[in-house]
Every structure is written in C-alpha cells, then in structure tokens.
C-alpha cells in the first residue's frame, strides 16, 4: 500500500533529520545488544579456551593410580610391572599401556648438581601428552629394551646445568651414580596452573629406571590409551575389572586404585565455564532490557515534546490509528538501526577481546540472531507505550499547549 511505504519514508526522514535525538534513543539498545553478543562470545570463548587447556593433558587417556581411601582396610598396593603385563595380556580395549615411575633425585653435570623430577617412561609418553622436543630426539623401543642409560632433559635442567652449552651428547649423572647420555631436550612448557615448574624434569626409559634408579620398581601411575576414543568408558570398566583381579580384591571390597579420565575434569571445567557464560549472558540480557527502557523513555519524552506536532497531525485529519502507526514505525526504525549498530559493536568487541585474550573468537549465529530478535522485540514493546500515548492525545489540548 502506497500509504504504508510513504509512512516508512516520512518516518525515516524524521529519524535522519534529528540525528542527535535518534542516536541517543538508539544508544542504549545498541549497547545492550552489543553487550549481549559480546558476553555470549566471551563466555563461549573462555569455555573453549579452558577446555583446550585441559585437553593438553590428554583427553583419551585413562590414568590408573594407587589409592587408599580411609575406609579401606587393605594396605595400598603399588602398581607394578606385573600389573602392567597383566593388563597388556588381558585387556581387549587397550592400545597402549604406559607406566610412569618417578622420584625426585639429583642430576649433575660438571660441577653443578640440582634435584629434579626423574620420570621413567615409555617412548610414547612425550607424544601422548603433546609435548614437543626442542632439540635432539626421543629414546626409542630399542633403548627401552636395552635399558639404555639415556635421557631427555627439561629446559630448567638444561639452563641450570649447561647454561649456554649444547647438552646433546653430554653425559649427566643421575642419583649420584648413574651416568646418562642426553639424547634430547624438551620444548619449554612453563608452569602448571598450580605453580609447578613443568620444565624441571628428566625423562628416562622406565626399564632403565627400574634397574638403576630404584630398589623397588613400582609405578606412580599407569596411563592407558584405549583402542579408540569412544571406548573410554568401556576401557575404564575393563581395566578396573582386570586390576581388581590382579590385586585379588573380593567382590564386596572397594578398589585400592583409582581409574580416572581427564574427560571428567574437562567436563567439570566445561560445566563451570558454561555457568559463567550463562551468568554473563543474563547480565547482558538485563542491559538489553535497560536499553529497551531507554528507548521507551526517550520516545515518551519525544511524545511530550512533540505534543504540538501530534495535535497538528490530528487536526489535519490523521486518525489515532495513523498516529499510532507512525510512532510505531519510528520506534521500529530506531530499533532496527540500534540493533544493527549493536550487532556490529558486539562483534567488534568480541573480536578485539578474543584477540587480546588469545581465545578463539566464537560468534554463534544463533547468539547474534537471538540478541537481534530480542533487541527488536524489546524496542517494539517499549515503543508501543509512547506510540499509544501519542495516539490518545486530545488534539484540542495538544494544540492549546504553547
């Protein structure tokens, strides 16, 4: 209908001819919509960032550890080579079994000596934890079988013992008496979230560790990789069953070990991050509502300011319905522009923050769609009241006011 299009055109002109007032009206809504999009993006970005950090721990590993809960009358039985071999023989869902033995013991080179964590591990340990080598190589299956006296050093040990010198090919002394050739250097990993220096470490073949670095070969923990990621739960059940049998645990007795998956930790972190995200979104939703109220207030002021104009329009022959429509359309135009500005603002802020925080920039179309819809709805809802007030103005009073 021609009148409809004309009404839009005239309303648009009016909006453009009062840029200051229009901008003020839209500001609240734009900020509200922008905040909503940005907050949803922050929440999701932070969540993915947290999850990614936990995933470095290895999402597809089951960790077996000795455990002795207070209620358990049995003494703790450490995990041994026998357990590892039993698992390797019995388990059907397991691809690799990686035992880890560790102790804090001195490492020495030249005149320097310092305590460090020495981990007896399998060659696959580095890869499965996404660790990287800065120089040299890793020890291999042959080294493992031959109980070779070789090691891969963390950056802290390299720095403290060798300074600027190249450690590759040099021989360090472990535990005061075991000479060990340096075959590789780990890339720097920094500190863990609880303040442990992850570079203060030396990796050796666990066979060599069992032979030369300990009197009683036991493992701190055993990491198990299932044949595929989907078998995590099945593998955990099977491992629990096997270890119970290996330790001779009766049906009514509790486990003397724990079989845990990083997935559980990740899920917990994921849940926490999601709660945080919801919280952020709720706060942003409030600001969106406030933005809508802002539109209503300015439109109400505008109706009061434009009393004369409304009276003139009414006297000329505009029906209450036409005046209502005009104000609704004006509100709608302001709402649409404000929402559009808010979407742009929100995406810009989300991008900026994501870049600075090193998060992945996550802008979900559904989040943008939701906030845009919500923004327009809020604008319309709060635009209606002033429009109705304008339509109900008595033209006689409206014209008398001067």
């Amino acid at each position, binding site marked *: 209908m021609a009148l409809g299009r004309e009404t839009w055109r005239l309303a648009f002109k009016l909006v453009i001819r009062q840029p200051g007032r229009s901008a003020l009206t839209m500001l609240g809504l734009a900020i509200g919509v922008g905040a909503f999009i940005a907050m949803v993006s922050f929440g999701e970005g932070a969540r993915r960032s947290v999850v990614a950090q936990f995933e470095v721990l290895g999402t597809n590993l089951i960790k077996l550890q000795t455990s002795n809960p207070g209620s358990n009358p049995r003494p703790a039985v450490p995990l041994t080579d026998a357990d590892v071999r039993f698992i390797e023989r019995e388990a059907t869902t397991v691809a690799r079994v990686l035992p880890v033995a560790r102790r804090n013991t001195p490492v020495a080179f030249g005149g320097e000596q310092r305590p460090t964590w020495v981990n007896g591990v399998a060659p696959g340990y580095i890869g499965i934890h996404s660790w990287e080598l800065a120089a040299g190589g890793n020890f291999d299956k042959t080294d493992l079988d031959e109980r070779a006296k070789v090691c891969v050093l963390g950056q802290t040990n390299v720095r403290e013992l060798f300074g600027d010198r190249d450690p590759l090919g040099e021989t360090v002394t472990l535990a005061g008496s075991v000479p060990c050739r340096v075959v590789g250097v780990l890339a720097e990993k920094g500190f863990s979230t609880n303040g442990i220096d992850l570079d203060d470490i030396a990796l050796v073949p666990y066979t060599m560790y069992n032979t030369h670095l300990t009197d009683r070969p036991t493992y701190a923990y055993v990491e198990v990789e299932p044949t595929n990621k989907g078998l995590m739960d099945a593998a955990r059940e099977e491992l629990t069953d096997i270890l119970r049998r290996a330790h001779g645990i009766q049906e009514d007795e509790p486990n003397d070990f724990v079989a845990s998956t990083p997935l559980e930790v990740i899920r917990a972190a994921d849940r926490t991050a999601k709660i945080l995200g919801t919280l952020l979104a709720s706060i942003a939703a409030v600001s969106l509502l406030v933005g809508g109220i802002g539109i209503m207030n300015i439109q109400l002021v505008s109706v009061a300011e434009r009393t004369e104009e409304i009276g003139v*329009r009414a006297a000329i022959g505009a029906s209450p319905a036409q005046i209502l429509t005009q104000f609704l359309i004006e509100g709608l135009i302001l709402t649409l522009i404000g929402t559009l500005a808010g979407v742009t603002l929100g995406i810009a802020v989300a991008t900026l923050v994501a870049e600075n925080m090193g998060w992945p920039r996550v802008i979900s179309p559904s989040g943008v769609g939701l906030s845009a819809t919500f923004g327009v709805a809020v604008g319309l809802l709060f635009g209606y009241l002033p429009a109705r007030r304008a339509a109900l103005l008595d033209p006689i009073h409206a014209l008398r006011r001067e």
Partner: protein
Amino acid sequence: MLANASPTGAPVIETRGLTKVYPNSVGSVPVLAGVDMSIAHGEIVALRGPSGSGKSTLLNILGCLDRPTRGAYLLGGSDVSALTREEQAWVRLHYIGFIFQSFHLLGHATALENVTLPLHYAGVPREKSEQMGRELLARVGLSHRHEHFPTQLSGGERQRVAIARALTGRPPVVLADEPTGALDTKTGAEIMRLLLELRDERKTSIILVTHDPEVADYADRQIFLRDGRVVDRSEVPDGPRS
C-alpha cells in the same frame, strides 16, 4: 458518508441547539447554551465575541475536534455531532481545513511536505500529492520555497504554507483561528486578501475567529457570541478589541 457539497444554496454548516457543558466540582458550566447558526457555501463568516464567550469551544465542535453535549451539527447535510474519534479524523481530513494563529507547521518538514501532509493521510500517491502541493504553493506565492523549512520562512510565508495545507484536500470548510493574530498589519491584510481570492476560486466556506474588527470586516457576515449564545451585534459591548 457525507453528501457532496452541493452548490444549490443548502447550507454547508448548520447547527441546532448546540450545547456544550463542562462538568466541574460545583456542578456544571455551560460554555455553549444552544447555538443555532447556518453557513452557506462560499460564505466567509467572522465569529466574534469576548474571551469566555464560547468561540473556541464552538470552533472545536465545528472542526470535529470536540463533540457537543446536546444539539445537532449538520456538515454537508449529515449529522456529525456524535462521531467516534476515528470518524472525526476522517471528517477533518476530507471536509475541514485548519488555519491557526501560530501557524502550527511541522518543524522538521519542508514547506512542500507540510502542504502534502493531508494528502499523505488521505492515501494520495506521492507523485500526485507533490504535484498538487507544488501547484498550491505556487498559488499562494511560494513556488520558490518548496524545500525550505518553517524556520527559514517569514511569518507571512509560514501562514501562506499553512493556508496551502488547509486547502490541499479541497475541503468545503476552512476554520481560521486568528489567522492574522501573529502577523503585522500589512502582512495580515495580504493574508486576508489571499483567503478572499481562494474563496472566490474554490467556493470554500471560511469561518474566521478574530478579535480584530478590521479583519472581521473582510467577512460577508459576522456572528457574535456572548455567554455561549449567538447575540445581536448591539448586545456586545464595544470594547477596544471586540
């Protein structure tokens, strides 16, 4: 809804016993107490009377901005005394043009947009309404001022825009409330001459509310109001402004 304005001499406006009572705390105050009047096609009538005589109320009722408490108001032969707000708006749009003392132009609209506003509400397509608007602006001597905003126009020019606006819908009746009240004498006289010319061209009936006897002299006939009644001229005390 209403019969077309007929040139046969039947009155365009006729009121019978028009009464308006405003309730207040002590009872009710009659502002109009039975006004009978009749205005012919193409007639210019000056409505005069002291403040409080009921002029404004009568004008509001004649302009379908207000409704009488009692009595009949026939516009073009149809009773319009008890219409809804939407119906009143429709009657104003098609039958009545308003001219105000303080012009009442829309500040954010150009002269042309002000003039075409009634056509917009009547649903006339833009090209046609703009053409009609340009013609009318040319007729009131403002062909060079289409795109000017009211603040860029002089008082006389603004009133010409307002007159053009009142006439765009070709209403049979124009209500002019002190149309020269905000203008100097010379400009006021020009505006009155313009109204007379337009009446002659279009056979529009004009009801003119004024305090100014000189302005009232442009009218074909004068109606005096006192205490809500039409009275003879002799009954109105001849004050300096009435």
